[in-house]
C-alpha cells in the first residue's frame, strides 16, 4: 500500500514499466514532446538508451535486436517528424511480424488537433502498419497500456505496437502499480492446434508419395526450429525455406533443398511444384514465394498449413488441412504422434521422389563462373561464410546482394539471418547490424549491403563510432542499383533508367572520417586476404567498412520472372 500511494510522474511511470518488462535497450532520439521521458531516463541506469542519428535507424535497430533475440524491441521517438521518420521502420517490422513496442511523444492533450508545433496524427498515420496502437489520455492509464502493449506485441502473431503519449501526461502525477496480468476480451490468440487436424495432417504426410515441407519466418519467430528438425528427421522428407525462414532448418542438412521462390534453387522450386502433399509451416504463400498462383495450383496437391494467424490461411491459396496454432506447439504434437504411432510410410515412392530431387540438384543451379578480372559477389559471400565459419550474424539490405547473401551463406541456426523480407526496405542493413551487435556484443556481425542501400542510412556510421560497434560491412559495390538494373536488362531491353550510381563517395575515406577502418578491394585475388584481415583478432574491436568493387553485370540466378510460375526459371547462362 505504501508503494502505491507514492506519486510518480507519467515519465517515471513509463520508465518503471520498461524496467518491469526487463527491457535492456531503448533505441531512440530525443525531442520536445519526450523531454520529460528523457529526463526520467537520465535518472535511471537499468536499461541503456542508444542514441541513433535518425529515427528510422532506431526502429530498425530495435527490430533487429528483437529478430536476433526473440525479445520485444523498444524504440522511443518524439512527436511529428520523429514519429513520421519512424514509420518506415514500423512498417518493416509489421510486414515481418516482429514484436516491438514504440513509444512516441505527442503534443500536450490540450493542443491536439490545433496543428501545434511538431504535431501529427501518429495513431492515424501508423494505424495500417501496426498490430495495434494506443493514445494515452490519462496518466493513470500508462501502466495498463504499457502492459497491454508488450502483451499484444509478443503474443499470437507478433507485431509492432505503438503507444503515443502527450507531453502533459508525462508530467502528471499518479501512483504506480504495474498490472501482473493482462486480459483482453477482444484478443485471445490460439496456441494449441486442433488434434484431429494434426492427426489428419500426419496421415497425409506419411502416405504421401512426394511429400514436401515449406517453412517460413514463423518457425524462426516461434522458436520452433528444434521441433521442425525432429519432424523432418523422423519422417525423412525434403524441406525448403522462405527467405524469412532461413536458419530455421539447418542449411547443411541433407533434407534441405535451399531457399525457394523468385530466386530460390531449381530443386526447391521444382519440388514445391511437383509434390503431392505440401506442409507449410509458419509461411504465407507470398507472391515472391509461389509466383503465379494459377500456375502453382495447376499441379494438384494436398496442402496442410500450420499458422498462428487464421487470416494467413487460405488467403492466397486454398488450404485443405488448416491448423491454427503456435507452430512450436503443433510441431511438438506432431512429433509426439509420430513417436506414439510410428506411421508407415510409402518408402518405395519416397525413394523415387528423392531420386528425382537428386536429379534436380544435379543442375547445380547456384554454380557461377569465377573470374580473374572481376570480383564475383557470390564468391565474396562464400568466402565470408568460410572466414566466419558460418557462425556470423548476417544482416542485409535489399537487392541483389540480399539474394546472394541468402543463397551463398548457408545458415544452420535460426535468428542469424536478419533482413527485411516483406516490406523490402533498403537502408535496414547497417541499423540492423547495430541492433544485433548490441544484443550479442561478442558475436561476429556482418552487414552485407549495396552502394545504394548503405547510403540510405549511412549516418549511422556515427552511432557505430559512439558505441564502438565492431560491425563488418561487406559492401558489394557494382555501381548500379543492381536488382533494378537486372530487371531493366531482362524486361526493358537494357534501358538502364536511373539505375546507375554515379558520384559515389570514397567509402574508405568516409569510413575513416567516422573513425572506422576502411578497405577497398578491387582485385579478385585480394578478396580472401581482406576478409581474413577484417575478421582477424587485430580488428576484432573495430568497425571495418569493406568496399568490394564487384562485377557490374552479374545477375541473380535462378530467377522466376514476376508473375510467372515456380517451374519457369531463368538459369545462369553457364548452365
Amino acid at each position, binding site marked *: 500500500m505504501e508503494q502505491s500511494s507514492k506519486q510518480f510522474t507519467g515519465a517515471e511511470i513509463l520508465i518503471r514499466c520498461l524496467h518491469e518488462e526487463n527491457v535492456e535497450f531503448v533505441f531512440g532520439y530525443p525531442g520536445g514532446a519526450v523531454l520529460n521521458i528523457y529526463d526520467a531516463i537520465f535518472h535511471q541506469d537499468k536499461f541503456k538508451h542508444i542514441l541513433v542519428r535518425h529515427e528510422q535507424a532506431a526502429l530498425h535497430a530495435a527490430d533487429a535486436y528483437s529478430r536476433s533475440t526473440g525479445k520485444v524491441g523498444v524504440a522511443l521517438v518524439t512527436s511529428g517528424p520523429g514519429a513520421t521518420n519512424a514509420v518506415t521502420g514500423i512498417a518493416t517490422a509489421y510486414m515481418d511480424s516482429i514484436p516491438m513496442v514504440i513509444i512516441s511523444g505527442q503534443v500536450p492533450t490540450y493542443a491536439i488537433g490545433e496543428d501545434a508545433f511538431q504535431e501529427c496524427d501518429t495513431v492515424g498515420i501508423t494505424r495500417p502498419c501496426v498490430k495495434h496502437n494506443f493514445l494515452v489520455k490519462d496518466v493513470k492509464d500508462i501502466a495498463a497500456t504499457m502492459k497491454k502493449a508488450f502483451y499484444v506485441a509478443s503474443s499470437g502473431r507478433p507485431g509492432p505496437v505503438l503507444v503515443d503519449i502527450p507531453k502533459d501526461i508525462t508530467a502528471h502525477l499518479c501512483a504506480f502499480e504495474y498490472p501482473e496480468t493482462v486480459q483482453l476480451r*477482444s484478443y485471445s490468440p490460439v496456441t494449441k492446434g486442433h488434434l484431429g487436424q494434426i492427426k489428419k495432417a500426419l496421415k497425409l504426410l506419411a502416405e504421401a508419395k512426394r511429400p514436401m515441407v515449406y517453412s517460413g519466418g514463423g518457425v524462426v519467430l516461434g522458436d520452433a526450429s528444434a521441433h521442425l528438425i525432429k519432424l523432418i528427421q523422423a519422417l525423412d522428407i525434403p524441406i525448403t525455406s522462405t527467405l524469412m525462414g532461413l536458419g530455421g532448418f539447418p542449411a547443411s542438412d541433407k533434407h534441405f533443398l535451399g531457399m525457394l521462390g523468385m530466386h530460390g534453387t531449381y530443386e526447391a522450386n521444382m519440388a514445391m511444384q511437383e509434390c503431392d502433399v505440401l506442409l507449410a509451416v509458419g509461411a504465407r504463400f507470398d507472391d515472391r514465394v509461389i509466383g503465379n498462383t494459377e500456375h502453382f495450383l495447376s499441379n494438384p496437391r494436398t496442402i496442410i498449413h500450420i499458422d498462428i494467424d*487464421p487470416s494467413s490461411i*487460405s*488467403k492466397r491459396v486454398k488450404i485443405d488441412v488448416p491448423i491454427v496454432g503456435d507452430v512450436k506447439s503443433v510441431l511438438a504434437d506432431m512429433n509426439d504422434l509420430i513417436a506414439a504411432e510410428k506411421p508407415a510410410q510409402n518408402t518405395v515412392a519416397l525413394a523415387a521422389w528423392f531420386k528425382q530431387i537428386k536429379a534436380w540438384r544435379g543442375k547445380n543451379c547456384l554454380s557461377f563462373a569465377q573470374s580473374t578480372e572481376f570480383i564475383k559477389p557470390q564468391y565474396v559471400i562464400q568466402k565470408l561464410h568460410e572466414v566466419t565459419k558460418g557462425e556470423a550474424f548476417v544482416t542485409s539490405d535489399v537487392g541483389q546482394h540480399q539474394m546472394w547473401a541468402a543463397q551463398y551463406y548457408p545458415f544452420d541456426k535460426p535468428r542469424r539471418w536478419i533482413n527485411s523480407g516483406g516490406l523490402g526496405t533498403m537502408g535496414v542493413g547497417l541499423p540492423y547490424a547495430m541492433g544485433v551487435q548490441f544484443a550479442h556484443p561478442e558475436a561476429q556481425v556482418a552487414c552485407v549491403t549495396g552502394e545504394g542501400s548503405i547510403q540510405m542510412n549511412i549516418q549511422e556510421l556515427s552511432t557505430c563510432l559512439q558505441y564502438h560497434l565492431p560491425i563488418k560491412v561487406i559492401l558489394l559495390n557494382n555501381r548500379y542499383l543492381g536488382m533494378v538494373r537486372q530487371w531493366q536488362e531482362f524486361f526493358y531491353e537494357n534501358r538502364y533508367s536511373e539505375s546507375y550510381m554515379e558520384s559515389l563517395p570514397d567509402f574508405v575515406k568516409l569510413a575513416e572520417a567516422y573513425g572506422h577502418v576502411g578497405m577497398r578491394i578491387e582485385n579478385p585475388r585480394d578478396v580472401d586476404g581482406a576478409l581474413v584481415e577484417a575478421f582477424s583478432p587485430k580488428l576484432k574491436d573495430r568497425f571495418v567498412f569493406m568496399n568490394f568493387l564487384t562485377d557490374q553485370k552479374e545477375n541473380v540466378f535462378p530467377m522466376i520472372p514476376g508473375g510467372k510460375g515456380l517451374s519457369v526459371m531463368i538459369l545462369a547462362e553457364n548452365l
Partner: protein
Amino acid sequence: MRHIISLLMENESGALSRVAGLFSARGYNIESLTVAATEDPTLSRMTIVTSGSEAVIEQIIKQLNKLIDVVKVLDLNDGKFIERELMLVKVKATGAFREEMKRMCDIFRGRIIDVADGSFTIELTGSGNKLDAFIESLDKAAILETVRTGASGIGRGDRILKV
C-alpha cells in the same frame, strides 16, 4: 454475393477507423456501415454490408477478428436474420403531388413526420430492397432529398451476438 456482417467492438475512439481503414486498405467493398453503442456502453455494435466471393468474405471475417478492438464477428448470412434500414425522404407536396404522396406513403407503410407548405418528409423502415422500391415508385421530380441509415441486422430466434 451481398453479406451482412455484424460485430461487437470496444467503444473507443479510433475503433471505427480501424474497421473502415481495413476495408479500404485491403480493397474490400463497403455498401453501408452503421455503428452505435449497445446497452453495454463499453461496446459498440456495427453492421457492415459488403459483397465479394466466398473467399473474400472469409478473409474479411478473419481480418475483422484480427483487429484488437473487435470482440466478436458474425456473418449474418450464415443463418436466418432480419435486416432493417431507416430512410427519410423529403418530397414535393404541392397540388396533385400532395394526395399522391400521402397515398404512396400509406402503401409502403411509411409515416409523414413533417408537413410543410410545399413538402412532406416521409419516414420509412424496411429492408434495403423495400426502400429502393419506394424510391423507384416515386416520380423522380418529386424527390427533394433522401437520407438513409444503412442496414442494421440481427439474427432470428436464438442467434444472438453478445459478449
